């Protein structure tokens, strides 16, 4: 059975103009363009690796996620306790650090991965993708739709993947330039600080409301569920816990806010390194139309980028440091990506595809450069050195 992509009738207005890079027959950045036969073979090799790991899932994976959950919960309990009962700024700061760590672990290594279905095979209702609810203002169901379905299906297809620039940032010449993009670096800073709120409101599709592609009425169910989730999160971090501290409410409120902002900044940095680095490729709807699973694998490979680091950097990034592997295998337990990465890299080499990786600093600086570069109109941008 061959699955083919079909975007019939779903094209947005103001279709982006294909740049030279995307024209058929040419290379994608440092990667070769593959023939249909090669794409098919690539898909089969990557699929074989997936089946191999799926067949090997077992106690080790269950133990891994339970161990992370246990550490996260102790960090959360310890952090909140220290914030509450701290006697001096140092113990308070340690508490904030622990709570930030717990929140990062819960969202990135536990929530995001559980909601991808990485642990559905365990048949544990507490770890089931369709019912898990994370500690984030973004409602779980909304995330499953905008992230699991839209972003992971249409990865880096301009106009289809709303995660590419989050409809706020212009990250390639495929998006028409507007004067407001001159200030996009400040949007980037704001988005980083308030990332969870941005992710939460993502499904509202403000840009589509603006040009009347969707109506407010159609968005009402989403707005309701978003409001419900916001009130839950606000009650917890900004009302109940501070209130419990009585006269010390301000330090609890500040601590919780810092932990949430800290997590937002880290999460956005990690995620931006996953798709917006210098060599991360974009695709047009035309070239993805009617394509097979082999082409989907190809697009995931070229549209994602990794960064290197130690074991805990990987864990704290929810293994999105292995963004390439995550996009090829979103439903395989994330801690397996480290073992799969050398084999994916070898497959890339065999097919002449660029395996996009570097240190966190290297990758992140190309992201920042990209944001600055494409804030300029195409004529000015063309004058910059490549």
């Amino acid at each position, binding site marked *: 059975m061959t699955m083919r992509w079909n975007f019939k009738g779903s094209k947005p207005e103001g279709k982006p103009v294909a740049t030279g890079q995307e024209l058929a027959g040419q290379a994608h950045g440092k990667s070769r363009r593959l023939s249909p036969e090669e794409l098919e073979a690539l898909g089969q090799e990557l699929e074989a690796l997936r089946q191999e790991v799926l067949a090997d*899932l077992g106690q080790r994976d*269950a133990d891994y996620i339970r161990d992370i959950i246990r550490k996260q919960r102790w960090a959360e309990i310890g952090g909140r306790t220290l914030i509450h009962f701290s006697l001096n700024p140092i113990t308070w700061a340690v508490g904030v650090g622990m709570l930030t760590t717990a929140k990062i672990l819960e969202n990135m290594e536990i929530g995001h991965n559980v909601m991808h279905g990485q642990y559905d*095979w365990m*048949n*544990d209702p507490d770890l089931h993708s369709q019912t898990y609810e994370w500690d984030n203002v973004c409602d779980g169901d909304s995330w499953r739709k905008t992230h699991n379905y839209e972003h992971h299906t249409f990865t880096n297809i301009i106009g289809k993947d709303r995660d590419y620039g989050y409809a706020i940032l212009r990250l390639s010449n495929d998006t028409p330039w507007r004067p407001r993009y001159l200030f996009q670096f400040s949007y980037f800073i704001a988005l980083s600080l308030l990332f969870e709120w941005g992710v939460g409101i993502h499904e509202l599709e403000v840009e589509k409301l603006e040009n009347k592609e969707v109506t407010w009425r159609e968005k009402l169910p989403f707005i309701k569920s978003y409001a419900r989730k916001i009130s839950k999160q606000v009650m917890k971090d900004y009302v109940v816990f501070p209130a419990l501290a009585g006269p010390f409410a301000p330090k609890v409120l500040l601590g919780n806010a810092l932990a949430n902002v800290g997590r937002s900044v880290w999460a956005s940095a990690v995620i931006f390194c996953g798709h917006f680095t210098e060599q991360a490729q974009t695709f047009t709807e035309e070239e993805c139309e009617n394509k097979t699973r082999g082409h989907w694998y190809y697009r995931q490979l070229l549209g994602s980028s990794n960064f290197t680091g130690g074991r805990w950097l990987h864990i704290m990034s929810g293994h999105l440091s292995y963004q390439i592997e995550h996009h090829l295998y979103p439903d395989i337990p994330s801690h397996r990506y480290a073992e799969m990465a050398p084999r994916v890299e070898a497959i890339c080499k065999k097919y002449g595809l660029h395996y996009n990786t570097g240190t966190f600093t290297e990758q992140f600086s190309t992201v920042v450069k990209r944001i600055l570069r494409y804030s300029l109109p195409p004529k000015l941008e063309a004058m910059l050195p490549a």
Partner: protein
Amino acid sequence: MRLVSAPTIQSRIGSLMFLEKFWQRNGFIQTYGDFLLSEIDPLLSPRRLQARVVAIRQETADAKTYVFKPSRRWKGFQAGMHLQVGVEAQGVALSRYYSVSSSVQQFVREGTFSITVKRIPQGRMSNWLFDNLQPEDIVRIGQADGEFTLEQTPAQKVLFLAAGSGITPMMSMLTTHLPQAPERDFQLLYYCCNPDEVIFAQALQSLADQYPNFKLEVVHTDTEGLINAEQLASRCADAAEREVFLCGPGGFMQVARELLEAQGVTADHIRQESFGVRLDVNALEQTGGEVFFSKAGVEAEADGSQTILMLAESAGLKPKYGCRTGICHECKCVKKSGAVRNLLTGQVSLAENEAIQTCISVPQGKVEVAL
């Protein structure tokens, strides 16, 4: 006479029902409260009902008794009831239903109960229990339930008809009621292949020696043949006067039922306990068909040898499931159209938009389910 494990415990739990409901909701306090209590002792978990293995006894070469100390939230049982027992095997949560095999008195006295498991050659759960479960391990349990109890009948004369591991609820009833009901007349007719396979051989014999109102008959089918009319008539001539409790493999129970009815026992005096179906693929009618999983947009070819759950799994779906034998309803989903046969009842259902248990439903022709 109504024998409940500990009336005081039950009423205490009853008054705390609102707490039970509170802990089952999803929220910060529930998650972290449960976590902290479970870190102290898994049996303190207010969200999950669990038990600790306190002893394991080998009964026969392929049967073991597991003695559990349940959480204080476990409400106890009536002799003859069953409960769900869950473990994690290679990371995967498995659960099955087992009858309690110990007495209510033991639970009241020591706070423990046991189940007795026979190893089934291809059984995932029984093999895992045999090879892995150790004293001090924690298992998940459900509350005890069931109507296969003496409390359900006023009958003074009782016939227990058991085969193989079907002895377990009988053992619980005998050890519970014999010391308390000298006026009741009990007979046990227990079918096993050979003397080595008789579970509780010694315990049963000593009960028979101790209580004159208990008559024990063990039939070794290797030498005496499978259950048949003459044998039943000679071993228990007054079956028609008795309330019959029947438990054993499906085939055994079916034959026993027919024989009993031929001997004049009416259907309303036969009580039976079945533990779902053992999927005997060869016995299924081979009917082909196609199943369309509408949510996933995937179609699977069916040859009549697989249930809808198995088909969904081999098509790469990960639907919810529990017991996989038609008991717990965890796998329930809506069948939008088409006919499926229920392996437990044999009935074919044609209704549209009907909830079915995928683990025991075999497609008959073209079927669409909302998975």
